[in-house]
């Protein structure tokens, strides 16, 4: 329950804008001429039927794919080319549709891995685990423990993630992304393959992340109920083209969206 007067996270300036981005693989147009923006502090959903280009769009945003055309402006810096590690340094973190964790490592180590960009001590120092390197590790561990506490996964701290059920693996992956303290968090189908209860838990965490850390979130999701509940604004893609953009209510009643989802009589 949000108390009266208490505000949502202040939604403000544009954090990231996508302008006329096109991406094709050989002759297949994955994304054509799509423009939209993500504002600071909001939860932005990208939806669309299968093959609409949602994941491609996400991959363009964090530098996995290089668009053939168009521009992306993040925190006022415009670019056409960026490497994933540059995106990560710039404050973009993501999770993947198919969980991409280090399966043999514990949940704790996986999330610690998310801190590696923040570690300043060199390889040799870390190898020695002495003095300043130790102090640094302790400081990072503290942040990681806060995330573990936040996501309520204390009981699996020491469990290799390969042994965890799918829903928990997704949570660990979210934890690793959070460990980067991102400004923009990209979630690729965070609720795919989950049961009702797990979905509710994850929704709660997405809202809490947005609320507690003030993180801007862009998510791809298939479950319409979840999308409509969670997001502030929704952009709809179909066959690589943007067909709608607006609040959940606007999008829900958009004729093009209804046709894309239900099909049109020919």
């Amino acid at each position: 329950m949000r108390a009266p007067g208490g505000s949502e996270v202040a939604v403000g300036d544009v954090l990231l804008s996508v302008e006329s981005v096109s991406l094709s693989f050989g002759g297949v147009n994955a994304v054509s001429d799509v423009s939209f923006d993500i504002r600071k502090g909001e939860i932005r959903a990208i939806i669309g039927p299968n093959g609409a280009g949602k994941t491609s769009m996400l991959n363009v945003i964090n530098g996995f794919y290089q668009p053939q055309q168009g521009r992306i402006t993040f925190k006022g810096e415009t670019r056409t080319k960026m490497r994933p590690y540059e995106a990560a340094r710039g404050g973009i973190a993501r999770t993947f549709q198919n969980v991409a964790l280090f399966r043999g490592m514990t949940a704790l180590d996986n999330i610690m891995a998310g801190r590696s960009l923040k570690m300043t001590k060199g390889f040799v120092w870390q190898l020695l685990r002495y003095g300043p390197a130790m102090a640094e590790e302790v400081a990072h561990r503290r942040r990681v423990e806060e995330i573990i506490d936040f996501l309520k996964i204390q009981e699996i701290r020491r469990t290799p993630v390969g042994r965890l059920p799918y829903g928990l693996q997704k949570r660990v992956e979210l934890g690793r992304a959070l460990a980067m303290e991102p400004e923009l968090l990209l979630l690729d189908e965070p609720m795919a393959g989950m049961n009702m209860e797990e979905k509710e838990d994850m929704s709660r965490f997405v809202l809490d992340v947005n609320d507690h850390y003030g993180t801007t979130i862009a998510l791809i999701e298939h479950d319409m109920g979840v999308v409509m509940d969670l997001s502030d604004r929704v952009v709809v893609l179909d066959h690589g083209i943007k067909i709608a953009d607006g609040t959940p209510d606007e999008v829900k009643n958009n004729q093009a969206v209804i046709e894309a989802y239900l099909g049109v009589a020919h």
Partner: protein
Amino acid sequence: MAPNAAASADTFPKLLIRNAQLYGARPAMRHKDLGVWQTWTWAQVLEIVRAYAVGLNRLGLMRGETIAIVGGNRPKLYWSVMAAQILGAVPVPVYADAVADELAFVLAHAETRFAAVEDQEQVDKIMSVMERLPKLEEMVYDERRGLRDYDHSHLRPMDEIIAEGRKALADPSVAAWLDSEIAAGKGSDPSIILYTSGTTGASKGVVMTEERSIKAASDTVAFDHLNENDVALAYLPLAWVGDHYLNYAQGLVAGFCTACPESTDTAMADLREIGPTFYFAPPRTLEQLLTRVMIRMEDAGYLKRKMFRFFIGVARKYGERILNKQPVPLTGRLLYLLGELLVYGPLKNVLGLSRVRIALTAGEAIGPDLFAFYRSIGLNLKQFYGQTEAFLFLTAQPDGQIYSDTVGRTFPNVDLRIAENGEVQYKAPGMFAGYFKDDAKTAEVMTPDGYVKTGDAGFFDEKTGHLKIIDRAKDVGKLNDGTLFPPKYIENKLKFFPNIREAVAYGDKRDFVAVMINIDLTAVESWAERNNVAYGSYQELAGHPQVYDLIEQHVAEVNRSLAQDKKTAGAQIKRFLILHKELDADDGEITRTLKVRRGFVAERYAPLIKALYGGSKEADISTEVTFEDGRKGVISARVKIRDMKTEPVVPAPLEKAA
């Protein structure tokens, strides 16, 4: 522990001050937070709780008022209890998993103006029933997460309250006022109101007083020789009498350290890290632990499995006797020593029980095998019997006198008697002061001469002098010849056999006892596989003559055990049958909490009951069943009935729990 010091303090706040003086540098509380165990000494706890009390008082909490405590086992919630008691206010703990409706009932009934809660979840719950709680004014919370955007005009973090109190305490006049408040506390003041879970009707608020609580806790602390070096893990609900007694009251009296787990899910891992010396677990938890061990053993390598089996065998043979300090042959002793080195020691270590000195269980009947297992590996597990209203102990098993089917001797300073109708009644040092705002109900449970009725039926075992609890008093019936008929007692004895999943006993106002039995599919299936018994369906397996033979052995054993006591010998099972379908909650035959609805089952299977008492060898029955998708169908079967021989009443030699 210095018993004199305990006796001189008649309230918990005074005990806290005593502990800060005697054990100032010793740990009072631990809590795992952000993966690290945090520790507070008695001196630190006293300082925090004093500041907290001043903070709460500035918020408006006054002597005699109530304050709800809602949440899990967290130091700040225990401190909320202490802080309230310092002010002479009465804490009212509520189960963390209570639904909003129950929460509303308790808070409204206790007329709380204040609530100390754990986190957003509890705040949301309370806010959702706000219109039913016109008296509630202020809430303080422990965990900040998710609450940032809430309206904070009547919602405050505990840390702030404590900090404000600390600042105010810098003024000597405030400190002096606080000292006078503590001194003003009397032993007759109510110390806490514990609401019963309400399995039988609406929940009642059981009012305890300071002095009686401390007296009762002093008795058990002395009985179990608890002292300031002991450690307990508080993992059972804060609002439950067990936690309040075993950890809070005993902790303050003995000055031992109470550790709070990181979260409910980590309790088992935390147990291992803390290595408590004092441990309580209900039978269900012990069973889960054992099952987990057994499953992991099945997955272990051949050699380990062999070794485990062998040494568990050794433990079964000698373990219990070694624990009871009875004579054991030298080879047995040596084998057991080796077993301790190779199996029991590591096993106890994994379970977090290595350092346990006193282990207690209570709450429901415990299976003899389960009980014997823990004792045989060297855990001094003992049963006790108690009640919220008695706060808490009525009987307990002294060292060396342990039997799985009794709950022990009457506790020192407890006056226990068995009424005409078999009901257990008592006077105890910790006895409650009454139900909060409910004199009628209080009068209902009191006898004219001042004893409290437990509602449980039981008797003193002739050979041992220990109490045996057999059933709820209202469920105990009588056979036509006047013999006592305790259905649950008989059913439990049957259910301790792994092959029997459920049993329903009949006999009230009948000539003899007859039971209907549900086989346990998993256990009987694996038995059938090993013994080449072919079957096509549950129904066929349940009706198989060899399965009947198997169950007959179990029933005969139960009869033998019933025959050992004059009081129960007449209630031996004369006839039984095996039901063709599993009793199912979907069909209303058992409750969702897996308790058999005896009356309903009797109606539904009326032809079978008729046949059981009519003397026929078999009976036809067709029952409607509900499938999981809600469709209904009919199952018909011909069910056979077996006659049983009854045993003569021969008191068997004393059987220890092994």
